[in-house]
């Protein structure tokens, strides 16, 4: 009897620890094999990279797209003989888009001597950088757009342009083409990227003579936005800028329409997810996005693997990230820079310009990249290009 009680207590305690540690930090891997001893990833017969993506939770929609890009690139690289003659594989960690869970994930990856990690989300990427720097891990972010990411670390590169650039273009378009929309209300997610959106929009909009009537924040993963939207509605804004992403953005839009908000809704590339584009409530939204004109050949490869040609730029951001790693790794070896994370970071800085699925990508010294930004409107369940900047 006594033994049972102790065992039960232990069992409960372990479960409780599970909850404390974020509980679903599961990992899985694809590729030929994973470097089964798990000790030094690059010394075996395969080269392993890490990816900390939201595989569950409110960000899972994006995580799925990131994963598609990574898997596509790995398949292609391995079919062509691998990196420096060795097959490439990836270890996925579920960061749930939470900085805390993701920091644990990068520690797991650091323990396996992974030199290169893919990351997403501003808060997550900022959160894992100290561990990355300590362990000399190069990080490429293809999803997080918070402006604090610029120059955040010599080990960080962003294949996605930061939010500031998109918001600048959005406001520029609005003031040039829609001067009748004079005031705005901002709904934003209360994280680094959402606050970036709010601050940049407020700054740019005011600079161009617009008036910000107010703003309301919500937690990431919230489902009820009716109170902040009711307050927004009462101020009767011409524009409603929604700096929220994923499922949150979809629900904000649904509930805004439900409450009868007539304002023109604007957003950035965060809007370009099927839940919003093919949603009756999403029609008429004006949004920016990163210009995405993938090569026919690349599109065909995507369609062959995933059975659809509805592809987002997030897929190519991570496809590019993996290809950049492969190129930088080979460059580092050829030029005797070494093969650790620092060597890869130096190689990326030296190469600077990379071919990508979506035109040339050039990295600035602060790790950011510049791409063409498009303004589009959602009509008939798709994003129709209005103007490019």
């Amino acid at each position, binding site marked *: *009897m006594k033994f049972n009680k102790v065992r039960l207590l232990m069992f409960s305690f372990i479960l409780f620890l599970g909850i404390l540690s974020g509980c679903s930090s599961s990992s899985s891997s694809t590729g030929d094999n994973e470097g089964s001893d798990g000790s030094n990833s690059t010394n075996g017969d395969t080269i392993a990279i890490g990816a900390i993506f939201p595989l569950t939770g409110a960000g899972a929609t994006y995580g799925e797209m990131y994963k598609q890009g990574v898997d596509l690139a790995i398949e292609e690289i391995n079919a062509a003989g691998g990196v420096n003659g060795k097959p490439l594989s990836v270890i996925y960690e579920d960061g749930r888009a939470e900085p805390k869970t993701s920091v644990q994930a990068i520690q797991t990856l650091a323990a396996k001597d992974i030199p290169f990690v893919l990351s997403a989300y501003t808060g997550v990427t900022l959160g894992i950088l100290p561990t990355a720097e300590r362990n000399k891990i190069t990080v490429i972010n293809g999803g997080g757009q918070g402006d604090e990411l610029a120059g955040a670390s010599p080990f960080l590169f962003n294949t996605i342009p930061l939010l500031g650039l998109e918001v600048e273009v959005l406001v520029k378009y609005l003031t040039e083409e829609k001067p009748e929309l004079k005031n705005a209300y901002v709904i934003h997610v209360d994280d680094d990227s959402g606050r970036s959106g709010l601050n940049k929009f407020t700054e740019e909009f005011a600079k161009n003579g617009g008036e910000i009537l107010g703003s309301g924040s919500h937690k990431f993963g919230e489902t009820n936005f009716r109170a902040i939207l009711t307050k927004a509605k009462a101020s009767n804004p011409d524009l409603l800028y929604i700096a929220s992403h994923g499922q949150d953005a979809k629900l904000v839009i649904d509930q805004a329409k*439900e409450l009868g908000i007539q304002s023109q809704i604007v957003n950035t590339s965060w809007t370009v997810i099927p839940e919003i584009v093919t949603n009756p409530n999403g029609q008429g939204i004006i949004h920016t996005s990163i210009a995405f004109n993938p090569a026919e050949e690349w599109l065909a490869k995507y369609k062959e693997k995933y059975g659809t040609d509805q592809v987002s730029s997030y897929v190519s951001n991570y496809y590019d990230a993996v290809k950049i790693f492969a190129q930088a790794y080979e460059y580092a070896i050829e030029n005797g820079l070494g093969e650790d994370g620092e060597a890869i970071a130096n190689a990326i800085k030296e190469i600077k310009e990379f071919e990508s699925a979506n035109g040339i990508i050039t990295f600035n010294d602060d790790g950011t990249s510049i791409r063409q930004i498009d303004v589009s409107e959602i009509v008939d369940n798709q994003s129709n290009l209005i103007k490019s900047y």
Partner: protein
Amino acid sequence: MEILWQLFIQGVVLSMVYLLIASGFSVIYGTTGHFHISHAGVFTLAGYVLYLLMESMGLPIWISLILAIVISAILGALIYLTLYRAVLSRNGTHLVLFIASLGLLTVIDNGIVAIFSPDPQTFTTSVEFNKVLMILGAPVTVIQLGMIIIGIVALLLLYVFMNRTKAGRMIKAASVNPDLSQIVGISLKKIHVICYAIGSALVAIPGFYFALDTGANSGKGVELVILAVMAVIMGGIRSLVGAWIASLFIGMFYNMSILWIPPHWQTSIIFFLFLIMIMVRPTGLFGQRA
């Protein structure tokens, strides 16, 4: 004035969510003394049960709702009969039971993700229930109105059951003095099963509302249950009416205070008010002093 009225109506909706969760928790905790945090798990399961009945089996909404309430009540009773009784029969303390309950909640939330994927399961047949009605200029969806009406009926039934029926009086007796109740021949096990079933049926109603409103999703229950537990403590552990008043306060606070308080401060302020209240009146608004 219009905004006040609109926020008030949204406040009524949110209050009803807390009212039902808190009433369910109060019935269970007040009688058994078990800190049943898996109440949040039943909340989540109820939404998925409704999803399976309506979307996978194609049953009409009314039959699905009734069946899902019954299934949720059975699930709650089963949690007590299997897990909790196993803990208690091995002389586990209430703390062990709480940890076990927390463990079960994790298993439920993650199990659902494993089976259904982390994406919210939205109802396709419920589109007409998302229709917006106007109550004197305040928009309310059919689902919200439905939850309020069903909720009021359920709470009235609960009140009548607890105060006017023999079974209700037995529950009250067992909660005030379990030992004496056993001596006069009341089966505590039976009473506890009834309490778990009633409590779980009550928490299922807001579970349905959340599922129909924004899609069945796991992991959404804990925060609601913790606030509802706070309402139970604020109201006085064994006082249903106390829990109701406190739930109304919390639901209204969340909506009305948005006019003056930034949303990210609301929860901290609610907990701060709660701390002050239990320091001044540890037994809650309507609690009797021990």
